């Protein structure tokens, strides 16, 4: 119960951070870090896939409603939630990680955790940005957005994931 409340708190905090902070930094059209994906990253690895999928969809829907998008975030978060098991298996090996309740730094090596975070962030934002542009005409522009936004997003998400794993979920 305590852990569920913690996850609810993390969910709300990440959505608020995205909507009120990162969506309001009007630096450039190329700067749009999508950091709320950290929630799907830190979900317990042994959680039933159906719950991961539903929570991913709920996360996307919440951000969609708060930012005026009509399904874009649901598409990208649900896809990442669906692919999460495959991504972890690809990076850490099938036997790794799934017997743990959270992506623990003891079970995950730092290298694996970095790979996991990078893969999740890149897959999510690639789906988001390409679906948003819906055109191959501006593919270079979309790729540039992807690279710049992802560099920032990976650092922020990495910091958030470390903070949550070491400080919040450990207690």
């Amino acid at each position, binding site marked *: 119960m305590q852990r569920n409340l913690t996850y609810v708190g993390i969910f709300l905090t990440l959505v608020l951070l995205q*909507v*009120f902070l990162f*969506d*309001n930094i*009007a*630096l*450039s*059209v*190329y*700067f*749009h870090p999508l950091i709320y994906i950290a929630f799907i990253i830190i979900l317990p690895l042994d959680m039933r*896939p*159906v719950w991961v*999928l539903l929570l991913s*969809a709920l996360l*996307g829907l919440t951000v*969609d*409603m*708060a*930012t*005026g*998008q*009509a*399904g*874009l975030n*649901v*598409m990208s978060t*649900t*896809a990442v939630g*669906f692919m999460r098991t495959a991504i972890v298996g690809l990076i850490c090996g099938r036997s790794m990680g799934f017997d743990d309740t959270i992506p623990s730094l003891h079970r995950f090596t730092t290298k694996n955790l970095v790979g996991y975070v990078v893969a999740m962030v890149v897959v999510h934002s690639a789906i988001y940005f390409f*679906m*948003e*542009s*819906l055109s191959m005409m*501006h593919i270079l*522009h979309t790729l540039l*957005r992807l690279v710049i936004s992802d560099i920032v997003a990976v650092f922020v998400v990495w910091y958030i994931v470390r903070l949550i794993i070491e400080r919040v979920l450990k207690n």
Partner: protein
Amino acid sequence: MYKLIEFLRRIYIVVLFLVIESVALYCYAHSTYHTQAKILARANSVVGGAQSVLYGIRHYFTLSSENRALATRVAQLESELQYYREAGAIERENQEAFAQIDSVLMEGLVQYRYMSARVIANTVHHRNNFITLNRGAMHGVTPNMGVITPEGNMVGYVAACSDRYSVVVSLLNMDFSTSGKVVGDDHNYVGSISWNGSSPYKVDMTELSKYADVEVGDEVVGSGASHYFPAGVNIRIGYVDAVRENENHTSYDVVVRLAADLSRLDNVILVENFDYNEVSGLEESVASGQYLLGEETN
């Protein structure tokens, strides 16, 4: 039957995933920037208060530069006021003639109403960008009001509003287009203004006649054909940054550097055209051929 249930049990995650994706894709594919603005307006009735508080904190740090801009604006308006005072002295001689004008008629002549608002949320990094203002229906804001900066630069128009907030479709919205012309072009050729999604400081003006007099640095203003903005007033869009012929060499494609920095908007002016619905309705009826049907029945 058992095998079917077992099969579905094995693939229900994939089915659920496909269902969620299909619904999301359907909603996204059928959404226009108007529906997005409406969703945002509805969301603002919940999160708008928090946006206002955050805006207040950010605004505090820009007060000094805003004061400088206001002082400059006051000085400019003072000089304009002086001009009108002098003109007014001459016109007072014709006061008797003015007194005979029916006040009801004067009221009918007023076509535009202006009001100020503050930007509380603004994006420049989406394909379709929106601006949220701290004025809504209860303050007299209605959809289709034009939005300009205090300096008279074009910003966009109101697409949706809740009671206390309104959402503006900005020039940095790939689904928004308007028409513009080059100041100094004697032929008054008009081009189509739209944003290609790359730079928040530049928009494209396409289909400008090859016979137009256009040079780098020329001022580009609204054509006056848009009903969002006051007719007869040059609403500045920006300045010509580059000019080249299109692929077919039939017209110019012009890159326009925006006069307003839309990523740093603070105060804006809302313009209501009282005749908007009447004119738009008339144009729509002509476009759909309804006016012909009306004539036939008469």
